């Protein structure tokens, strides 16, 4: 039994997984001054101990493969095993990133195919696959916006406008690109406040970052008006693809007036989230920003072969963002998924993600929960606010989230977006059955009854997991961040 023990705790001096001991070698050619004097303190365990320990840890996780995981804005849909298998073939796993293009045509063709799919679903002119996550895609996009203005000698634009409902990576990205983030309010209907937006946009505006559907779970209805407003002021529009799943195969960001975007392949294209990555955040641009695309990307030569495009061919490129080709293995998984879906399948993704969200929203509304935007359609996600429950019974959104874990559901996103008090952002995704959604709605209803009858039960949840609520204050005050024992 290893409950609560770390891999170091279960080791013993002198023990090892000896079948991993490959032949050593003479190191006499290395000067002794550069060698370490004592071996690093790593665990000393047998192979079975390691296998059992980490298998045991895996069982302490909630995961899509085990539970409904309606984490808003994260698109926790089924991750097809076939895509995982496709990317795990020896020819892909053993390919060195710097292998010459002549012996890489299979891989390059795959990347080119994915670039074409992403161009088609977004309506953009060109794609670079290198960004390794949504946040790096955002950085890439805003860095291109800056390169565009700089190339025109238009250096007074210092602000990136973001709605107050935006994901935290948006303002953080603006800062990383040397801009100031200017937040504009979101109105009571979930759309950006147009008066405030008009006041914010001007000759200092480099661009605006928008998610559409927004993080409020509604479609930004005046998007074409916003696009004209920003473009007329000389700014550009960045589309944060976090919520692309809602409109996949239905609406193209290019048609909404966006100049640049990123897609989260680990959301919309079903690649596994891996306990916090890897993801991939390819960027797509219109003609205006094409010269600035990050390298490398793949193009097809006249002879039908594929080749890398690098800085020598694209001197205005913002350059390289990763050591090699970003998260290549994730790109392959996304391509495999896109192949299985095809164009009809993509359209159905947007449709059924929207159907599931609107159905679950209706169920919760009928169960007495307050919707944040009751007069709006849900996109692929929606928000409920537990303001009343918190006021009446002292049971918060976080308490509901923790109690859901006892019922075998992962919690929705809590307290985001920040502008809705006591909120849960719920995204069911298209791959869940009606029965699963019904079970979740039933559990929410029961928790609400518990909150009225026995608030302590909910406030002290979870009760059925390996541990109860953790002391986060202690974690931050008495920092124990690990380190080898002794």
């Amino acid at each position, binding site marked *: 039994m290893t409950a609560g023990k770390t*891999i170091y705790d279960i080791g013993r001096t002198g023990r090892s997984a000896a079948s991993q001991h490959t032949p050593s070698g003479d190191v006499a050619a290395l000067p002794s001054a550069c060698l370490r004097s004592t071996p690093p303190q790593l665990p000393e365990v047998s192979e079975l101990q390691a296998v059992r320990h980490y298998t045991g840890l895996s069982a302490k996780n909630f995961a899509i493969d*085990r539970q409904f995981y309606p984490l808003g804005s994260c698109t926790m849909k089924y991750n097809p095993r076939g895509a995982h298998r496709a990317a795990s073939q020896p*020819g892909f796993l053993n390919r060195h990133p710097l292998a010459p293009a002549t012996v890489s045509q*299979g891989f390059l063709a795959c990347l080119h195919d994915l670039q074409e799919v992403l161009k088609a679903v977004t309506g953009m002119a060109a794609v670079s696959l290198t960004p390794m996550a949504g946040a790096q895609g955002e950085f890439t996009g805003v860095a291109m916006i800056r390169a565009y203005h700089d190339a025109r000698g238009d250096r007074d634009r210092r602000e990136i406008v973001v709605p107050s409902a935006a994901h935290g990576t948006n303002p953080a990205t603006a800062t990383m690109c040397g801009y100031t983030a200017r937040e504009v309010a979101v109105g009571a209907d979930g759309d950006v406040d147009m008066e405030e937006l008009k006041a914010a946009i001007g000759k200092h505006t480099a661009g605006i970052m928008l998610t559409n559907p927004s993080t409020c779970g509604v479609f930004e209805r005046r998007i074409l008006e916003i696009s004209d407003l920003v473009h007329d002021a000389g700014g550009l529009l960045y589309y944060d693809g976090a919520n692309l799943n809602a409109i996949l195969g239905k609406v193209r960001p290019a048609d909404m007036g966006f100049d640049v975007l990123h897609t989260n392949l680990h959301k919309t294209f079903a690649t596994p989230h891996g306990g916090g990555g890897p993801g991939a955040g390819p960027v797509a641009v219109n003609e205006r920003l094409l010269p600035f695309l990050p390298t490398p990307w793949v193009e097809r030569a006249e002879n039908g072969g594929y080749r890398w495009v690098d800085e020598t061919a694209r001197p205005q490129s913002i350059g390289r963002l990763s*050591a090699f080709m970003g998260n290549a293995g994730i790109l392959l998984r996304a391509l495999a998924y896109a192949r299985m879906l095809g164009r009809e399948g993509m359209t159905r993704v947007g449709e059924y993600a929207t159907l599931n969200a609107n159905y679950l929203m209706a169920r919760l509304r009928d169960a007495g929960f307050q919707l944040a935007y009751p007069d709006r359609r849900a996109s692929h996600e929606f928000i409920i606010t537990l303001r009343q429950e918190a006021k009446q019974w002292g049971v918060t959104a976080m308490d509901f989230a923790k109690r859901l874990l006892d019922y075998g559901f992962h919690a929705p996103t809590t307290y985001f977006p920040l502008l809705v008090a006591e909120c849960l952002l719920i995204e069911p995704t298209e791959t*869940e059955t009606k029965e699963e959604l019904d079970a979740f709605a039933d559990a929410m209803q029961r928790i609400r009854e518990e909150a009225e009858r026995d608030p302590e039960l909910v406030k002290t949840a979870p009760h059925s997991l390996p541990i109860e609520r*953790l002391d986060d204050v202690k974690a931050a005050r008495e*920092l124990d961040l690990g380190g080898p024992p002794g």
Partner: protein
Amino acid sequence: MPFIPHTPADVRSMLERIGAASIDELFDEIDPALMGADFGAIDSGVDEMTMLAELAASARQDETGPCFIGAGCYDHHIPAAVWDIASRGEFLTAYTPYQAEASQGTLQLIYEYQSMMIALTGMEVANASVYDGGGALAESVLMAVRANRRAKGVDLHHVAIAGACHPHYVDAAASIVRNQGIAVDRLDFGRDGQACLDALDAAGAPAAVVVQQPNFFGLIEPVDDIVRIAHERGALVIAVVNPLALALLKPPGEWGDRGADIVCGDGQPLGIPMASGGPSFGFICTRRSHVRQLPGRIVGRTTDRAGRPGFTLTLQAREQHIRRGKATSNICTNQGLLVTAATIHLALMGADGLRRAAAGSHAKTGRLVRELTAIEGVSQRFAAPFFHECVIDLGQPADPVAATLADAGLLAGLPLERYYPELANCLLVCATEKRTEAEIARFGTALAGALGR
């Protein structure tokens, strides 16, 4: 409908509950002008069997013979158990452990990972990963500038790269930090391929000095001297290291007068397949005094209501989801699953297994260099001691030779002209512990043939 479980009866009853006549009606808030785009450029979907056959054909197309390219991505043995366990759905299909009670597996694993990285680097704290080696260097540069912002006489708009650091890492770092007004200055390396201490002396007072050990050419750098010189000028030292080499080499925490200040690199040698260079993961370790400048997730141990030990994300006030525009970085999702694999890898290898892989690779590369330099006109470019990579001078342009050998199914190393025009005749070669005596002999024979000797 791949992966969509709805029956026609489900759809009917769901629409009824919503009060909508059709799924299309659910999109009625969207301007009709935006609908109706043509997605005809995308092919129709195929079943899993067909998709697998298509991608298998692409994968097979790129299978080659033995790989002697390193340059930041290495063909090491990976224990079978590593990916068997890391690919379990419970690790593969979870997300960032925001709900700690439902994520103790991932959280405890990251805590163990942090412990192992601290042991390897000799530093005091580690984060839970960044994107890759290039991203790790970029974040380390930004971190050093923040951490050094109160030092007197230090130029916060410059960092200096001492000697040959991986050119892709430096390029990536330069692209990423440029927009914050920070220039990355590449100092010359010396005739021996090592960092030039005179160039460092002449570099003024940058906010940070970056040194890679072993350097891009595989050579051992005089890190103790570099750290001392940098610290005398008020610069922080960023060490870029190969974590496998640290099984053998002095940990950066012990370099020079008081050790490196920030240690970063790419974790690929720790159980990650080459896989076209990604996904891999970057790591950053530092001193406890700089912990609030660290970007990315950090896991701490605490207790639950019942006093039992448990693990949670901590110091989140550094991060974008709390701090927004004032965060240390915009980083959010990054490379969790690769850290999972690396942790299992380190546990299985232990210090002894890791040292053997490092020493075995060092010895195999030595054997390869003897094989190749036995060919007339082929020589070792730099005489300094190397770890498991070496620059080989062919006496004629290396690019066409490498192309010839690649066509013959042998990845003969990386031609260096693209990065260093003065090294146009040179190949950077690497033999890991996996390369066999027969493969090394084959390389020798093939190279001699290609050179006409």
